[in-house]
């Protein structure tokens, strides 16, 4: 029962964090230390609480308040504990990071930000542990509102206002659908308690409606196409540690909601559910990473990359649901393990890169990659951590991205066991090819991101004068980087946790994944099987490295001369370096039907026409979803509103006349005349 006490302690710590801001609001230093320490301790408590739940068993905590619609309380079952673990780990990292990063906000409402940060963590914890419909919805709303204020923290810039506005509208559209789903379900089951809703059999059409509502509702929050338009605007607008939390953890609460609905409430459904999710997910992944490659704003790039990774997680979920529907528990276990493992991994490596981007921003005050460069020499540690993150995002061995990506590939490979015949093979092949495409695009994207930002010469003065950031930020990044490496080398640890998480749901069997040595990741399922050995990969890579070193030094000490990079005889300067726009040009050209780039070259002919003119080159991307889906909807709404405006004449008497007419009509009608 220790987990129960830890849960109360955690809520108390976050609450103290929120309240303490009032008392320390005059001193930025104390606000920083106290509020973030409270958040840090709260997150540590969250990790401990989740660990104890895994060790001891599920926990129910009930608040001693009885409200008219039932007792509101929390319950931490294994699924909640898993996501609580994610919140805790990323929260610890961002809290330590915030010690250093908040100095940037000393004169910009730091107490408000610190208080809201604690509130954000608290609301996410409450969302994950709610066991009553009303409690969940209240916590969800609080989370949305708090994150809205955090996104809009620097509201002096109008672009942030616009971003926050789009965010709040989209998240409320999602909330509407979530409420619809919950209400339909509890109407059928007759209760609003989660434990009563489990597995309740509602009619077929109602189930489908609930499924679609859940998909749209939680998909909006997760950033699924076509509801993703808020993501690339909101993440750059927020302060970096908040972006890390939003991208790493808040998107996962949406995944948690989906898992809870699909695994627990709706149960095993028809096969088209999983297929629909698969199709949407793979489109999300491809389009997300495509837009990421063509970006040159560092944080927008990371935001689009989050869209891609959510797509990969949803691929796992979709495949899992397909396998559940076709009665293949082992394969369903593989798929859901892939999805949840990738959720954890994404939380880790994306928050790491956001923290790195925040460090870069603090050092250079710009997030435009075209103005950065050469930072690896000035900010060596940040560069190393960002490199770890890049390798992880590109899903290369031996880091954690590879493990979850491999599991996803395996899940897709076995799809023909669910869809028999030619369609199955075809579908599976296309999905795997597209997933491979996203992996390669992600690798290209992060080579570009890391290379242009950190390598070669600095492209602007602010980059040339960058200074390494303070120790707390580096420590936090280092911890997360270490975890990335650990989860890549030791997959069995995660698989044990995942086994316990998924064990309680019907139709899933993950036992096969667990019973191996610590480095192995293998399974067998109806004449098929697969496996990788992370130890083997590490050993091979290390021995290859050693062989290379051996070769290098076998022939005596090398004589090295310093010679400038070859640039056809001129002294190289930073203008000759490759730019981010140039790096992605070929990709823009190949995918121009999706991306719709629009090029414009302006010639400034004022200079001497014999010695060259100044050219400026503009690339404009037409964001397809905004222009094809959302703008027409907006225009239609505005047209309807204009049409309805004629009712409003401004005359008081006419309005009262409306009231009277309606009253009389109702009176006559109700008496049945």
């Amino acid at each position: 029962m220790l987990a129960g006490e830890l849960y109360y302690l955690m809520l108390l710590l976050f609450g103290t964090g929120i309240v303490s801001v009032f008392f320390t609001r005059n001193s930025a230093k104390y606000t920083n230390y106290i509020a973030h320490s409270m958040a840090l301790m709260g997150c540590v408590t969250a990790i401990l609480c989740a660990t104890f739940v895994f060790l001891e068993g599920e926990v129910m905590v009930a608040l001693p308040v009885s409200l008219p619609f039932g007792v509101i309380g929390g319950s931490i079952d294994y699924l909640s504990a898993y996501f609580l673990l994610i919140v805790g780990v990323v929260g610890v990292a961002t809290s330590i990071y915030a010690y250093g990063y908040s100095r940037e906000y000393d004169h910009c409402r730091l107490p408000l930000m610190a208080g809201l940060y604690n509130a954000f963590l608290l609301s996410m914890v409450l969302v994950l542990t709610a066991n009553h419909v009303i409690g969940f919805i209240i916590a969800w709303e609080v989370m949305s509102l708090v994150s809205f204020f955090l996104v809009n923290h620097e509201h002096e810039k109008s672009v942030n206002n616009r971003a926050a506005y789009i965010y709040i509208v989209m998240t409320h559209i999602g909330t509407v659908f979530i409420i619809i789903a919950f209400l339909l379900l509890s109407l059928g089951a007759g209760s609003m308690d989660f434990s009563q809703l489990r597995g309740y059999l509602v009619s077929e059409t109602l189930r489908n409606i609930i499924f679609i509502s859940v998909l749209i509702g939680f998909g909006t929050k997760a950033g699924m196409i076509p509801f993703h338009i808020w993501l690339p605007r909101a993440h750059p607008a927020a302060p970096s540690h908040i972006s890390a939390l939003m991208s790493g953890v808040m998107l996962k609460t949406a995944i948690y909601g989906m898992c809870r609905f699909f695994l627990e409430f709706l149960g095993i459904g028809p096969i088209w559910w999983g297929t629909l999710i698969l199709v949407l997910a793979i489109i999300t992944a491809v389009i997300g990473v495509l837009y990421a490659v063509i970006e040159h704003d560092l944080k927008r790039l990371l935001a689009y990359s989050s869209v891609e990774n959510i797509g990969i997680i949803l691929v796992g979920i979709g495949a899992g649901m397909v396998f559940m529907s076709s009665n293949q528990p082992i394969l369903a276990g593989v798929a859901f393990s892939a999805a949840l493992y990738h959720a954890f991994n994404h939380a880790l490596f994306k928050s790491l890169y956001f923290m790195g981007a925040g460090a870069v921003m603090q050092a250079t005050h710009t997030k435009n990659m075209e103005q950065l460069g050469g930072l690896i020499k000035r900010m060596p540690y940040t560069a190393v951590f960002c490199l770890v993150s890049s390798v992880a995002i590109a899903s290369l061995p031996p880091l954690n991205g590879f493990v979850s990506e491999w599991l996803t590939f395996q899940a897709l490979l076995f799809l023909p066991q669910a869809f028999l015949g030619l369609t199955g093979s075809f579908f599976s092949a296309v999905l795997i090819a597209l997933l491979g495409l996203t992996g390669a695009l992600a690798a290209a994207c992060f080579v570009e991101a890391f290379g242009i930002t950190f390598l070669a010469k600095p492209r602007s003065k602010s980059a040339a004068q960058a200074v390494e950031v303070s120790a707390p930020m580096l420590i936090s990044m280092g911890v997360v980087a270490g975890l990335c490496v650990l989860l890549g080398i030791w997959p069995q640890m995660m698989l044990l946790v995942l086994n316990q998480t998924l064990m309680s749901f019907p139709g899933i069997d993950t036992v096969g994944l667990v019973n191996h040595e610590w480095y192995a990741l293998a399974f067998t399922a109806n004449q098929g099987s697969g496996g990788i050995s992370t130890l083997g990969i590490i050993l091979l890579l290390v021995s290859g490295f050693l062989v290379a070193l051996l070769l290098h030094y076998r022939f005596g000490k090398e004589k090295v001369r310093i010679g400038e990079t070859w640039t056809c005889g001129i002294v190289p300067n930073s203008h000759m370096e490759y730019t981010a726009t140039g790096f992605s040009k070929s990709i823009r050209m190949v995918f121009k039907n999706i991306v719709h780039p629009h090029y414009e070259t302006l010639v400034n002919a004022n200079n001497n026409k014999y010695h060259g003119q100044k050219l400026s080159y503009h690339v404009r991307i037409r964001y397809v979803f905004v222009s094809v889906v959302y703008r027409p909807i907006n225009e239609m709404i505005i047209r309807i509103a204009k049409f309805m405006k004629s009712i409003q004449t401004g005359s008081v008497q006419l309005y009262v006349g409306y009231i009277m007419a309606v009253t009389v009509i109702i009176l006559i009608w109700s008496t049945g005349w």
Partner: protein
Amino acid sequence: MDAIISMIQSLGIMLLAPLVAGIIKTVKARLQNRRGPSVLQPYFDLMKLLGKDSVVSPTVSWIFHVAPYVYFAGAFAAAAILSVAFFPRNNFGDLFTLIYVLALGRFFLVMASLDGGSAFGGMGGAREMFIGILVEPAMLLSILTIAIKAQTTNVGMMVESVGNPLLSLHYVFASLAFYIVLLTETGRIPVDNPDTHLELTMIHEGMVLEYSGRKLALIFWASAVKQLILIVLFVLLFLPGSIFSGAPIIGIILKVLLVALFIAGTETITNKMRLFNVPKFLALSCLLSLLALVAQ
């Protein structure tokens, strides 16, 4: 016992890789009515490079120094994975591991090319990633024609499931598709010209323009190993049929030589295509793979 055999095999792949590269070069020369270098020339090149000084630009950082090692380690690991895969009952020989380990090497090498701070390096690196993006789905699709049927990506098991088939349409399609991928990944004409060092006509060579001396030797050797790995994969999966049932290794070696000759022939007959025609080329490969899937 198995472990020793697989170690010998991976060592063999590593040591014989430059020989295969040399054979391709010499055969190409003879086909073009030239005398060409001797087949052992790559070994001499390696020894020469290992003894030379290197010139390092002051712009570069530690990534430039580390990248060749990582690239070599990737190729080494891939060779080991491939040779271990001859014994199907273990967890080492997974195909995705192989592909991604090679991708790890490429990742670091492209970053090193950006590190030099020159436009050539950047362009070469950008194009290498571009080709890598396009080749990944094509390679996966062509391998999937076998993997989906075998329901595994363990290389050994896939080879087992291929067995001894008759010459059928879907095999022809699949092998053509993978042949196109082979040409692309190893940077042969019609995709890339491995012989010239003109900045605008090469992709792989442009990427390593800044390297010299021992690091260049490592990269050169690793590229040759990668090429041989891909040829061996092609032979194992798409040219099945055992010639000498007693010692399958001899059959494989003969088939590798055959493929090398074929590559040399292809390089002689075709010419390098425009960079933005490469997507169409690879789309052809994807189409062939899909047709192979359908024809199964």
